[in-house]
């Protein structure tokens, strides 16, 4: 059924969902190309799950369209949509065995001979021979794969995954991330993956949309979003950033000139989201390097002086906090490559960076520096 109709991109047009006075999803516009692995990333309560449920048909949109190709499916009942979901809790039917769980979709669509198909699916998720077991007899990771097989067997045009790895422990999650990516490549179905785990989104998805308060803050390939975030929210939700409050005061060639706390910096215009007024100069902690004195800073780099207030050794890197002259604390991650000297708490140090690695974001006039203390491991630190 799903294969007969010409598939197409999944498009959300002005999709809105309100619960009473609360707007969960705020006129969302989004195009998800056919065959892509798309991640909706956001904190809990940002509207990502509501969006997913509207695509699945489990939630009725207040207004707007859900288009699959040229067809608006926003008002179809869930069982009429060529869309399947892998639920967060897996929602395997406890009274049916694994075989019947996987065969549930085909049987409802009137397909009699399901044996071969179910066997292939179970083998795709590496659960050959588990058909006669009950869901309760399987481990979390195995249940997760059954949920995946149960959805994939229907060959939907779009597969929705609602925090599918949330209940698994870290090691299994890594394994399943790779597994999911492999399966997606193998079957070529559009995957829409909802998660609050930035690392999960970046590992698997071709395109990531960062959602906040019912809206999409930024959309793009993971590396692009990470390297050049569009807003302060994105800069600190996806990894962390040192955001220094400043003001644009001029232009020099292709660079914008900024003053911040009495110091002057420049940022390439191509890495700026605004060219006037109050701004944040943003630098990722791993793009900052440390030196003893300003003299040692290589040419063409910009620098700030400060005092080391914290040094955490985390194996692959050492994470420093550097208190600047005006009191803000910058995060600096220095790779433990052996070439770097170590700094102790209380040492004076100079943090420097290549201006091409900085980025410029718009800022409300009353906003101060935003430097998030190290709460979580940085992207890639533990892999």
């Amino acid at each position, binding site marked *: 059924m799903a294969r007969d109709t010409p598939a197409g991109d999944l498009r959300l047009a002005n999709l809105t969902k309100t619960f009473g006075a609360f707007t969960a999803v705020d006129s969302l516009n989004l195009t998800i190309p056919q065959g892509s692995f798309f991640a909706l990333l956001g904190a809990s309560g940002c509207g990502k799950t509501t969006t997913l449920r509207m695509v699945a048909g489990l939630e009725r949109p207040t207004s707007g369209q859900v288009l699959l190709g040229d067809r608006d499916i926003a008002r179809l009942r869930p069982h009429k949509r060529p*869309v399947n*979901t892998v*639920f967060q809790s897996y929602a395997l039917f406890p009274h049916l*065995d694994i075989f019947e769980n996987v065969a549930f*979709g085909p049987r409802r669509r009137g397909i009699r001979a399901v044996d071969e198909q179910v066997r292939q699916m179970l083998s795709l998720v590496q659960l*050959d*021979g588990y058909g006669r077991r009950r869901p309760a007899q399987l481990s979390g990771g195995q249940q997760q794969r059954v949920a995946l097989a149960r*959805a994939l067997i229907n060959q939907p045009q779009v597969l929705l995954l609602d925090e599918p790895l949330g209940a698994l422990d870290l090691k299994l999650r890594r394994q399943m991330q790779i597994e999911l990516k492999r399966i997606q490549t193998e079957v070529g179905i559009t995957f829409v993956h909802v998660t609050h785990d930035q690392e999960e989104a970046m590992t698997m998805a071709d395109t990531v949309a960062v959602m906040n308060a019912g809206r999409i803050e930024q959309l793009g390939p993971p590396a692009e979003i990470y390297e050049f975030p569009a807003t302060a929210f994105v800069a600190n939700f996806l990894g962390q950033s040192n955001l220094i409050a400043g003001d644009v005061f001029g232009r020099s060639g292709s660079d914008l000139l900024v003053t911040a706390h009495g110091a002057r910096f420049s940022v390439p215009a191509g890495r700026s989201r605004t060219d006037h007024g109050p701004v944040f100069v943003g630098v990722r902690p791993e793009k900052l390097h440390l030196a003893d004195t300003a003299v040692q800073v290589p040419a063409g780099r910009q620098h700030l002086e400060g005092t080391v207030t914290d040094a955490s050794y985390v194996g692959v890197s050492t994470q420093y906090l550097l208190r600047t002259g005006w009191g803000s604390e910058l995060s600096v991650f220095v790779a433990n490559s052996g070439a770097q000297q170590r700094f102790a708490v209380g040492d004076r140090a100079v943090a420097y960076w290549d201006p091409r690695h900085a980025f410029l974001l718009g800022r409300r006039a009353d906003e101060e520096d935003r430097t998030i203390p190290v709460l979580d491991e940085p992207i890639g630190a533990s892999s």
Partner: protein
Amino acid sequence: MSVRISRWLAEHWVLGVALLVLGYLFLPIGVVAGLSFNRPSSRLSYDFNEFTLDNWRNPCATSDMCDAVLRSVQIGFLATVVATVLGTLMAFALARHRFRGRSGLNVLIFLPMATPELVLGTSLLALFVSGGVPLGFWTIVIAHVMFCVSFVVVTVKARLSGMDGRLEEAAMDLYASEWQTFRRITLPLVLPGIVAAALLAFSLSFDDFIVTNFNSGTTVTFPMYVWGAAQRGIPPQVNVIGTAMFAVALLLVLATSLRGRRARRAAIAPAPRQVGGRP
């Protein structure tokens, strides 16, 4: 030596207490079962006189008793069917829908269970009499439905609220219509609760005496027959009926637990080969 004894006691006293409690529970049933094989020396004697199978061969020797049993079974069946259907529907409404007066209804449901049966019986009698309803078979059924519904609602609701609502969403997501979802997912998962509720309703109805006594008119149910017979000497066939009821209940329980165990074993039996870990 004494250390060994005290250790033995420490390890086994729980078992001893458990056996005593079990004995306490089953002694009366054992007496009833034993008396069902008794040939009493006189009408008013309950001593074990002589072993006989006559009572089991002719359970209906006293014909009005068998009529009473049959009537009780009919009433129990009707009351169970009506109460189970109504109660299940109510349980679904209370567990699944938000509506005005829902919390109030939740409390009201408990009232018939908390009210003394005497009060229920007399107030129902007053209602029937003032309404000009002739007392008999049907007033008993109505009365039994009334107090059984609450038990059904509570039992089914407990089962329903323990059920993950996402299962139904998952079924609909997998191309099941509303009816198919109910038939394939909701009903099979709630069925144990409904069956338990029906069994409970039947046993409540079958041995109810107080409410029935007020609203029966000239109709005689089995508990009322036993009550009446107790004045003149209980025929030993009453023990046959009691023992048979117990045996049926025991068989039902055994059959369900056996079936559950077999299903579990069947599910585990075919040991799948372990799949090598892929990267």
